[in-house]
C-alpha cells in the first residue's frame, strides 16, 4: 500500500533529471565550442580574443578570394579523394578479413589481436615509423621491392605529389583496418545461422552464401563504416601532419581541411578568425551529410528487419 502511494506521487518528468548530466556534458563539450567557433569566425579574432566584427568577410576570403580559396578547394578535393579511397579499400579489406576470420576454427583470437595492434598505436608513432619505412633510398619498403626484383614498383612514396595522398591514406588504413574488421565481424556474427543452414540444404556454395546472405545483411553495418569513415576522413589531420607536415606537401598534394585549419589558426599568429571559419565550414560539410547517411542507415535497417 505504501509502495503504491510512493509510485503514484512520482513525477512523469523525473526522467529528465537522469538526462541532465549527459546534457550538461554535451552542451559544454560539444555544442558550446561549436557556437564559440562560429562566433570567432564572424570577428577578426586574434591572439587575445575577439577583434572587430567582420560579419561574413572571413567566409568570403576562404571561399571566394585568392589565394585562400584555391587552398580551400584543393584541400576539399583531397578530402573527398581521401574518403573515397579509404572507404573502398577499408570496407573491402575489413569485410574480406572478417569473413576469413569468422571461418577460422582455431587461432581467431590471435589474428583479432594481431590486426588490432596498429589501432592501439599513437598516430605520431605511426607517422614517424612509416616515415622511416617509406624513405625512397634506404626505407625497407623500397629495399624489399629491390630484393624481390620488383624495382619497377619502387616509388618516392611521400615525395611524389601524384601518389603521396594515397600513401598517407594507405598508412591510415593500415592503422585502423583492425577496428573496422571487428565491427564487420560483429555484424557477421549477428546474422542468424538459420539462413546459412537453409542455404546449405539448398546446396549453395560458400561464395554464394556470402554473396547472397552475408553481404546484403551487412549493408547497415557497412553504412555505419561509411559514416565513421566520412567523419574520420574529413577530420583527418594528425597522420598527414606526422608524415608530410602542416603544409600537406609535397605542394599541397596531401593538404586536407584539417591541416589547412591548423596552419591558418596557429602557424601564422594572426589567423584565428580565419581558422574558426574553416572549422565552421568543416562542420557544415560533415554534419548534414553524416546525418543524411545515418537516416539512410536506419531506413535500410528497418527494411531488412
Amino acid at each position, binding site marked *: 500500500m505504501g509502495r503504491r502511494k510512493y509510485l503514484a506521487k512520482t513525477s512523469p518528468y523525473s526522467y529528465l533529471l537522469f538526462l541532465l548530466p549527459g546534457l550538461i556534458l554535451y552542451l559544454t563539450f560539444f555544442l558550446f565550442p561549436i557556437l564559440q567557433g562560429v562566433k570567432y569566425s564572424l570577428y577578426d579574432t586574434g591572439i587575445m580574443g575577439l577583434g572587430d566584427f567582420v560579419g561574413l568577410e572571413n567566409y568570403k576570403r576562404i571561399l571566394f578570394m585568392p589565394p585562400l580559396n584555391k587552398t580551400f578547394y584543393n584541400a576539399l578535393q583531397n578530402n573527398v579523394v581521401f574518403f573515397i579511397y579509404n572507404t573502398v579499400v577499408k570496407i573491402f579489406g575489413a569485410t574480406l578479413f572478417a569473413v576469413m576470420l569468422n571461418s577460422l576454427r582455431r587461432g581467431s583470437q590471435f589474428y583479432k589481436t594481431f590486426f588490432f595492434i596498429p589501432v592501439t598505436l599513437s598516430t605520431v608513432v605511426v607517422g614517424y615509423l612509416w616515415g622511416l619505412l617509406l624513405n625512397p633510398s634506404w626505407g625497407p619498403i623500397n629495399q624489399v621491392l629491390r630484393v624481390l626484383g620488383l624495382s619497377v614498383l619502387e616509388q618516392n612514396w611521400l615525395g611524389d605529389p601524384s601518389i603521396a595522398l594515397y600513401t598517407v591514406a594507405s598508412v591510415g588504413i593500415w592503422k585502423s583496418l583492425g577496428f573496422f574488421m571487428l565491427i564487420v565481424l560483429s555484424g557477421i556474427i549477428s546474422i542468424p545461422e538459420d539462413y546459412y543452414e537453409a542455404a546449405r540444404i539448398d546446396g549453395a556454395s560458400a561464395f554464394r552464401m556470402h554473396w547472397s546472405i552475408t553481404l546484403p545483411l551487412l549493408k547497415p553495418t557497412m553504412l555505419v563504416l561509411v559514416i565513421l569513415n566520412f567523419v574520420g576522413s574529413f577530420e583527418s589531420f594528425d597522420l598527414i601532419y606526422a608524415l608530410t607536415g602542416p603544409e600537406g606537401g609535397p*605542394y599541397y598534394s596531401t593538404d586536407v581541411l584539417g591541416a589547412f585549419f591548423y596552419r591558418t589558426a596557429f602557424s601564422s599568429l594572426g589567423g584565428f578568425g580565419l581558422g574558426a571559419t574553416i572549422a565552421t565550414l568543416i562542420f557544415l560539410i560533415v554534419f548534414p551529410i553524416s546525418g543524411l547517411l545515418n537516416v539512410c542507415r536506419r531506413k535500410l535497417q528497418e527494411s531488412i528487419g
Partner: protein
Amino acid sequence: MKRRFGVVGVFAFVFVSLIVVGLLPSAVIAKDVELWSWREAHKDVWDEVNNQLDDGVDFSAYLNVDYDAVVITSYQSGMGPTILTGKGAQIITLGEAGALAPLENLLPELSEFPEAALSQVSSGGHIYGVPIVYQTLQVFYNKGIFRKYGLSEPTTWEEFLETAEILKQNGVIPITASGRDGWTLGLILAVLGASQLEEEWIVDLLAGEAKFTDQPFVDLLARVRDLQAYFQDGFMGYGYGDMGQMFLRQEAAMRIDGSFALPGILGNKPADMEVGMFLGPVLDEQQDRKAYLFLDGGLGLSAAEQNNQSALEVLRYATTAFFTKTWYDKLIEIPALPGVIEDKSNPLFTELLYYADNSVGNLFAVRSVFERGTPSISTLVNAGLQGLFTGDLTPEELAEEIQIGISSWYPAFK
C-alpha cells in the same frame, strides 16, 4: 542501504577531490616563474641559471612545429607562461596583441643591446623581448671530401655549380636536401637570396615598391630550382633527420642549414670528419657575400605578470654578460649582447661572429615581416618550392603565387 551509501560516498569523495585538485593554484605546486621554449637544448642553460638565482624558473619545452599553436591557445585562455622564449615575429605579434608587457621602462638594461637586435623584438616604440641569440643560415661542407677532390670554398655562383658538378661526377652527392620538410627548402632560398639579392631591392620590397614577381626574385627562384640536379635522388621523400644523417655519414658533401644545427653536427659527427661553413655564393665576384641573420629568441614577459618581481629578476639576469656567457658555454650560439664572447679558440664560432657582422640588412623570407599574416611567406615559400622542384610550378608562377598571397594582407602591397 548502508552499502549503497558507501558506494555513493566513495564516488562523491573522488569527484569532489578531482574538482579541488583541478582548482588548486599552480603556484602551490610549482615555481613562481614558468618559462617556455621550443628547444629542449635551452634547458641546459636554465638549469645553470637556476643555480645562480634565488627563485629560478620552471622550464618547459614544446615541439617546434607545435610551439605557435601551444602559445596562442594558452594566451587565449589566459594560461600562458610567465616568460616566453619567442621567435622574432612571434614576440612582436604577441606584444602588439597585448599578451606581452612592454619592457623598455621595466628593464633599462636593454639599452646595452644594439638597435639591430632590439628592432626584431620591438614595435610601435615598445620593446617586447630581451634579445638572446642570433642564428645564421649557411652552407656546411665536409672538408675532407673537398680536399680529396681538390676543391675550395666557392664564392661565386659559377664556382658553386662547378664544385657541385665535380662532386657529382665523382659519385659524391653534392648537396643533401629534404623535400618532405618544406621549411628546409626555405632555408636554401634565404641563403642564396642573402648574397644574391641587392639590399636596395629588399628595402623596396618591404616598402611595397618592389614585388616578388620582379626579375631578381624570379631569377633567384630559377637558380634554386637548378640546384636540384645536385640533390640526392628522391630528395622530395627525405625528412630533415634523413638529410642530417646523410651528411654525418659523409654520403653528401654539403648541407644548407642554420647555425642551430651546429651543436648536433659537432656532437654527432665521426671523429675524423672536419666540418666547414661558407655563405651563399654571389653572382658577381665584385659583390660581398652576406649572411641571412635573424634573432632566434627573445624573452617576453606575460602582460598579466609584469609586476612579478621574480620574473623581472630573471629577465634582468638575461641582460647580463653572465647569462650571455652561460648561453654560449652550453649552446655556442651568436649572442645578441655584443662584446662578451671573444672565443678565438673555436674557429667555427669565430666564423659565425664574422657572419653576424656581415649580414643582410633586411629579412625577406623566413622570420621576416612577411611571416605575420595569413598566408605567411613560410607557407608560400615552403610549399611553393616543393611545387617548383616537382615541376608543378615555374619560377614565374611561384613568384606570382607568393605575390598574390602576401598582397592579400600585407598593407604595403594593398
